[in-house]
């Protein structure tokens, strides 16, 4: 396997002076292409912080970050925006979908924002993805009318829209009941096997972590296991 991304000596501090929170303190991590990894650690250990940095949503205080051969620290906002659009998919725990749009419109968004319109090809792929997520009968539903599990499956479909190399999921099952959580994890596992998409999934649930090939544990601002 080849390295999809590598971070070295990563530091992230929120705030300054007395109120400064030093979340990441020299963290090193390498993800191989095609991995399905769980990110474990107690609440407040910096899982979300690490995911936002790997997702180029924010920059570390210091350290190096290379993904697909690109220096992600040096890149500017416009380059990072385009990079995210093409190579990284996201599934969040909260505020996942655009509430005023249908399931299909949400899924198609990453393509439409790049193309400037919703192309027929993107719509066809969106329908495909939603069907694979078991949502064939919810394609044109307003997302406000979907259940929590259905919303997360729409989010997974959207994360896959532009066929990214990496999908970052921040506690994607945190708000779901066990059955819905298992269904979502099942689908993620299938995509990982079928398409070789790399997944990094933060969770504090050992059962969910057990479904992944690799477990990465963070503590005290570094990877401890």
């Amino acid at each position, binding site marked *: 396997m080849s390295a999809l991304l590598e971070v070295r000596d990563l530091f992230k501090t929120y705030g300054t002076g007395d109120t400064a929170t030093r979340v990441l303190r020299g963290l090193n991590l390498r993800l191989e292409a095609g991995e399905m990894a769980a990110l474990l650690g107690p609440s407040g250990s910096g899982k*979300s912080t690490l*995911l*936002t940095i790997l*997702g*180029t*949503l*924010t920059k570390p205080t210091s350290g190096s970050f290379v993904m697909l051969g690109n220096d992600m620290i040096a890149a500017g*906002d*416009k380059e990072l*925006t*385009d990079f*995210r*659009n*093409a190579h990284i998919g*996201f599934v*969040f725990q*909260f*505020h*996942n*979908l*655009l*509430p*005023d*749009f249908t399931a299909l419109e949400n899924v198609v*968004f*990453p393509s*439409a*924002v*790049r*193309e*400037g*319109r*919703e192309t027929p090809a993107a719509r066809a792929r969106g329908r495909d993805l939603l069907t694979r997520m078991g949502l064939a009968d919810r394609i044109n539903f307003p997302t406000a009318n979907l259940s929590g599990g259905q919303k997360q499956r729409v989010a997974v479909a*959207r994360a896959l829209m*532009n066929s990214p190399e990496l999908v970052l999921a*921040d506690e994607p099952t945190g708000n779901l009941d066990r059955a819905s959580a298992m269904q979502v994890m099942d689908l993620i596992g299938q995509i990982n096997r079928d398409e070789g998409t790399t997944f990094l999934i933060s969770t504090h649930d050992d059962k969910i972590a057990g479904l992944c090939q690799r477990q990465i544990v963070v503590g005290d601002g570094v990877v401890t296991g």
Partner: protein
Amino acid sequence: MLYALKIATRYLTANKAQTALLVTGVAVGVFIFIFMSALIGGLAEFILSRTVGDISHVTIEAEFDDPPLLISPRGHVLVVAERGRTRTATLTEAATWLPLIEAVPGVKAVSPQITGAGFLTRGAQVAQVSVTGVEPGRESAILDLDGYMVEGEARLGSGLIVLGRELADDLALTIGQTLRVQSANGVTAALTLSGIFDTGNGGMDGARAFTSLSTARTLFAMPQGVTRIEIKLGELNAADATAQRIRAMTGLDAVPWTDGAEQLMEALNAQAQTGYFLKTFALITIVIGVASALLLSTYRRRPEIGIMRAMGAGRRFVIFVFVAQGALIGLMGGVTGAALGYVALLPFPSRDAFEAGTLPMDITQGSYGLAITLTVIGAILASILPARSAARVEPVTAIGQ
């Protein structure tokens, strides 16, 4: 950017009640703008039609020729002047100029006239009168004589005279009676009273008489030419330019009505300024309303903006989504307000039928296109601040709770 427009539209339709309220607010502002335009425009029209509707817009008057100076062989200067006769300046070439002046763009009517002073006598009664000889058929070209007739007809023919109501009353004259007119040149003629007018203007009704041009020729011993050419224009504001044009073309001293009407123009200007002031306030209200509503919307939608940014929407895309919302609100509010304004102005009498006591609203001066255009521009400007604030939402906002 078509896609950003779709998102903007969806944001507006997702919150129909709020959007309707906002559009209504904008429409009210536009309504006020249009109402003010129609009122100020109608008022100016009304005042102008009352003050200069019946007067010549461009007037050419004959200039007195300086008496010829002769230098005698002995070095004296000789002034050649006729004695004992009223000198009358004439526009001898009038017949040549008339068709040319009539062809000047914007000229609605041209009336060559011979004017002079005289006395009316009937029995023992004598009244001073100012006689205007006009071409038959052009009696109503400048002053709407026909419209002011209370008895008889405005039509002037040979041997006929039309007088003002006061003058006729003073001399106890009725239609069909004959009276003697003696001009300042000493010519006397017996004329038949064929019509009486009442303009409501005392100076006019008590001292003016109209005859045909040929009668005036006889009275004032002027076998050719005229003393005055009055010109009516389609557009009052064009008087200065048209007068200049006629001067350049004919070399005659054409004077626009605005010469000597500075006070009126100042008053109208002040009125127009008031209108601009109120209209500007209406626009500012629109801008503030749209800006605050959109700013609120950007705060409410921060998480969504974060999600869009995380999914690969650039700052420009976000800006466009909010500016497009502003433009759409401006367009909808502008069109609605313009339509409401138009409908509200429909019951007012048209500009030709203004009556004292009612607001002289002019529906044709509502500036509908300008109101819509300025509103859309204002709404776009209003959305720039919220749009920039939206574009500053960091993508990391998406991951927060």
